[in-house]
Structures are given as C-alpha cells and as structure tokens.
C-alpha cells in the first residue's frame, strides 16, 4: 500500500484494539477522580483543623486523638460490629433456608418467591418507620400481646439502650433476606442435576446432599452475598435514623450517623473525616483478606 495508507490502517487497528478501553475511560476517569480523589481529600482533611468549613492547615493526629477519646465513638464502633455480624449471619441463614425450601419445586413458588422479595422494594426509611411502630411498646407488639391477655408481656427492646441495636438487626434482616434468598435460589438452580442424582444413588439424604455437596458448589454466591450485605450494613444510615434516630441516647449510633452528626450538625469536619477514614480502614481490613482468599482459592 502507499505511504498514506499505512498510518491510517495502523490507526484503525489501534482504535479497534483499544476501543473498549476508550469507551470506558471517561467513566473510569470520573470514578478515579470522584471516588478515589475525594477519598484522598477526606484523608487529608482528617489531618487538618477543619471545623465548620474545610481548613487546609495540617495539625497531625489531633483529630484522631479527639475521636478516640469520645465515648460515643466506641459505642458506634461496637454497634457497627454487632450489627454487621448479626445482619450478615441472619440474612445468610434465613435467605439460604428460604432458598432451599423454595427449591423443592413447590406449587405456588412464583407467588411465594415474590412475597419474600417484596421487602427489598421498600426503602430503608419505610422499613425503619414501620418497624418503629411495630416495636414501640405503647403501640405495637407489646401492647397487642398484652391486650390478648398476657398483661406481663414486655418487648421493649426499642427503648432499652442495651437491646436497641438488635431491633435494627431485626428490621434489616427482614428487609434483605429476600434478596439473599433470590441470589441463593439462582445459585441452587444452576447446580447440575446429574450431581444430585449421583448423590441420591449413593444414598445421601436431602440434608447431607445440601450440606456437603450443593452448598460448597455455590460458594461464589456466598461471596457475592457477603459483599452486598456487608456494604449495606456498613453504609446503613437511613435505617438507623428512621428506626431509632440514633437510639435511646446514642445507644444505636453507628459510624455513619456519627460522621454525619459531627460533620453537619456539630461543625467538626476534622473529627468526621477522621471517623470516615477509620470506617474505610475497618472495611478494608475485613474485605481485602476475604476477597483475596476467595479469589485466590477460585483459581486453584
């Protein structure tokens, strides 16, 4: 070909090879800037003396010292671990159980599946408000059972500072187990029938089949459920605000509500940034090893 043709062909080939990356690059650049750029900004602010407005003069670890000497922060951290642990465990257990039960090819499967999935369509604010009324001692379950004829019945977890966080767990698990059930059901349906039949021939009962054969096959579903649930749990601000407003006193405070309160209601951007960085570090400390072990194991 002529001289003028070769650069053009080369160019076309270049574009064809790199087209996917070119198309994705604006989105990539935007993510890089808005997500990672602002994470870096928050980390920077956590080392400054920012109050009502960002202030860019560095003061070392002052905000972290202030953060770790605030009793409310310890309550928030403890609540985060309690809530995240129970939320993930509860959703996995209930979701898995529902999925296994639904997998038995029952008659009204479509209807039942939809009913279990409905709570996911609600926003956490609606869930929180509805459960707040249900768990209110003077309006909800306690009053109902007392009127049924058990005057000594009490279920006042919502106003008990030690038990209030468990009410948040209840509302959260109710909302999200349907979603986990859907994920598991899809996973279960993708298991090859041959394997199940082979297990039946070998004499394995239904419990053994599920526990030892099917569930290990759908391990990737566990991974994706845990990732989704963990992210919902750590970011849960709206559920706490709607259900308990931070709890009796600050008993159901979580780092997300702590950070919002310090940043926007108390003009302490520095402390809020420090708490956000601590949240990030906590999440990374848990998710990164888990991801690493799962993905490395998958390559075996």
């Amino acid at each position, binding site marked *: 070909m002529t001289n003028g043709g070769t650069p053009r062909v080369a160019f076309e080939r270049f574009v064809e090879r790199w087209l996917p990356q070119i198309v994705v690059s604006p989105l990539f650049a935007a993510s890089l800037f808005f997500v990672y750029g602002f994470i870096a900004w928050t980390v920077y602010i956590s080392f400054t003396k920012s109050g009502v407005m960002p202030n860019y003069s560095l003061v070392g670890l002052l905000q972290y010292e202030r953060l770790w000497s*605030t009793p409310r922060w310890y309550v928030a951290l403890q609540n985060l671990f309690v809530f995240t642990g129970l939320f993930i465990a509860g959703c996995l257990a209930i979701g898995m159980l529902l999925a296994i039960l639904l997998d038995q090819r029952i008659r009204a499967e479509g209807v039942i599946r939809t009913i279990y999935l409905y709570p996911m369509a609600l926003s956490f604010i609606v869930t929180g408000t509805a459960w707040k009324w249900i768990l209110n*001692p*003077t309006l909800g379950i306690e009053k109902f059972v007392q009127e049924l004829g058990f005057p000594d019945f009490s279920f006042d977890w*919502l106003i008990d*500072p030690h038990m209030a966080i468990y009410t948040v767990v209840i509302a959260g698990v109710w909302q999200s187990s349907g979603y986990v059930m859907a994920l598991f059901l899809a996973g279960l349906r993708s298991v090859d029938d041959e394997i199940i039949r082979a297990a039946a021939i070998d004499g394995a009962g239904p419990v053994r089949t599920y526990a030892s054969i099917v569930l290990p096959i759908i391990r990737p579903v566990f991974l994706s459920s845990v990732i989704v649930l963990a992210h919902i749990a750590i970011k849960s601000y709206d559920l706490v605000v709607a259900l*308990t*407003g931070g709890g009796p*006193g600050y008993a159901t405070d979580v780092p997300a509500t702590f950070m919002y309160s310090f940043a*926007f209601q108390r003009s302490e951007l520095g402390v809020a940034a420090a708490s956000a960085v601590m949240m990030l570090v906590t999440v990374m400390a848990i998710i990164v090893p888990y991801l690493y072990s799962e993905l490395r194991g998958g390559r075996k």
Partner: protein
Amino acid sequence: MNKISLFLSAAAISAFALPSAAFADGTVEVLHWWTSGGEAKAVGELKKSFEAQGGTWIDSPIAGGGGDAAMTALRARVVAGNPPTAVQLKGPGIQEWAIEGSLNDVDDVAKAENWDSVLPPVLAEIMKYEGKYVAAPVNIHRVDWIWANPAVLAKVGVTEVPKTWDEFNAVADKLKAAGITPLAHGGQPWQDATVFEVVALGIGGPEFYHKAIHQLDQASLTSDTMIKVFDQLRKLRGYVDEGFSGRDWNLATAMVMNGEAAFQIMGDWAKGEFLAAGKVPGKDFLCAPAPGNGYILNSDSFTFFKVAGEDNLKGQKVLASLIMSPGFQETFNLAKGSIPARTDVSLDKFDDCAKKSHEDLTAAIAANALEPSMAHEMAVPRTVRGEFLDVVTNFFNSDQSSADAVQALASAIQRVQ
C-alpha cells in the same frame, strides 16, 4: 416561518433580559428552612414587606433536618464564592462564620437606628462580631416554660403549676399514683437538653447557669449543684411514659392537650400547637415559667453574608432595617408565636402567655437573669453543644449515676475546648 421564529426568539431573549433592570430598592437572596405552617407564613410576611418597598426577594427555602440541609447548602455556596445575601442563622453559629471572614456588617444601619438601646444586651452581643452588628434578630422565644392541662391537674386537686422543683416532684408523684403520666416528653437529644437546661436554671439559679453552661467553668460543672441537677433529671425520667423514645415535640404537646399527660417542659413554640387546635390560654391550657426566676432565651435571626455589588449591599441594609422595624416585628411574631426581639414594641395584640413572657423578659434584663439557651444553639458553639447533648441524652436513657454523668460532662467539655 423564519420571521416568526426569529421574532419569538427575540421576545424570549428580551424576556430574560428585562428583570435585571428591576432593582428599585435592593435585591436579597434569602436562605432559610422555614418551610412549614406558621413558620412559612411568618417568613412570607417578611417577603411581602420587603417587596412592598420595591425590593426583589429571591427565596431559597431548603426544607428539613432542623437546618442541616440548609447549612450544608450554605457551606457549599460559601466555598464556591457565591454566598446568599441573608441566611437564617443564629447564636454562636454567627461568630463561627464571622471568624471565617464570610460576613458583612450592617453596623451603619444599627447605629442609625440605635439597636443597642432596644435589644436585650445578651441578644445584642450574640448579633455582633468584634463590636459590629452582623445579624438582625427577628424574635425572642422563651425556652423555660411549663405547659399544663388544668383539667388533669384538677383530678389530683392541684390548681396551679408548681413553682419549685420539689413541689413539681410532689405533684408528679400524686399524678403517678392516680395513673396519669406526669410529664409528656419526646426522647430526642435536643428535647432532653432543653429539660436539662431548664432544670439547671431551676436548681442552681441564673448565676449557676451562667457560670456552668454559658462560661463552661470547670468548677461549676463538677460542683454538687450539678450533681443535684442530674438527680432531678433522673427523677423526671421516672415521670415520663414508656413510649417517649424518639417522640416528636408536637406529639408530646398533643398528649398534654388530650389529657394523657399533665405537664410538658418546652419553649413557647408549643403555644402555637395549642392555639392552632383552638385551645384558650388560661382555660384549656396553662403556661407558667419553669422554676428558677430566670429566663432562657432563644432567638432566630438573619445573618448577612459577604456579597458584593451595590444592589446586594443595598438589599442587605434595607432588609436589616426592615427586620428591626417595630411594625414588622409585631406582624412576624403574631404569626410565629414568639415575642418581638425589640423590647419597645407594644404587645396589645398578643395573647396572655406572650404578654407574660414580655413582662418576665423585662424583669430578667433588670435582674441580670436573662440567659441564652444551650439546647437551642445560643449559648455555646455547636461543638460544645454536641458534647452536652451526648452526655445528657446518654444519662437520660441509661442508668448512669449522677456523679459519673458529671465527670463525663466535665471531661467532654474539657476535650472540646
């Protein structure tokens, strides 16, 4: 076709160009969160008055969160270099922004109209930064009221609201024995803090309140008086009903209105609830100052931010003057339920509770018993207020001892200063 579209686009462009010519008497852009009911009506009065004298009012209402969303929007605007002309901002928040260098002063208007002589000194101080006025107050709310239902009180043979906290406890015990909830309360941190500061005023008096809560003196914060304040708070905790957690303040007022509870400790915006339901003060509900012979003040104000341009600056000065004018103060406060910030406005058109509030205000100024509210962001910066709220609400909702709470409070205040 061509000519018509050309004409239409020319008309459209000139329609956009025209309004910029209409700056007769100043332009203001006002950021506020008075978006519901009586509050929206009240700010509408200010808008009407401003426009009546030829100015242009650009409204920027941002609902919700008790001002959180509005403050976030404000922060973004100031960082972007485009602040609104006036913002609904009060208390030490004004000084917070002044220190950042974000405010304009309206001292020339203040001097010309002699604001110093008509505002209570405590309030005037809050409106100033480095001796110059940077904000104009629209009203005075009193925080330390006790609202009562006389019919409920009559059931236990009580005819007037108790005048000391010991009397209150005695009446409350009688009510409890009769199966009536003594105190209607909403378990939100700011409400817990309101009760706390009213009790502090009653147990320690205005002097103690001033030292401990306004000046944050460590000796007062760790004194026996403070322990007694927490003891009384613990007693009050025993007088609220089981469902108080998270309840909104107006639902607690409704409990008093319906006879489910006898008392509520709340500021005079509760009066608005009673009046809106058609209740008559003195007959259907009683308003009485809480024990303590003091007056806890809360005041809304408009703060003037650093805008440029002759039009905007003129607008700020006109707005400042308008806000402090006796006519506006009367109209606004009739709509909002508070009393005028100006002490020389006649209260003939106001109801009995408002008149009592004004009498007590004058007496308190004379007796040096007028104190700014901590729970309503008037006495201390928000960082400090946050610490008060945490300690008080944690104490109220747990079984912490008074001594521990006092220790926690003292170290919290030390931490944040």
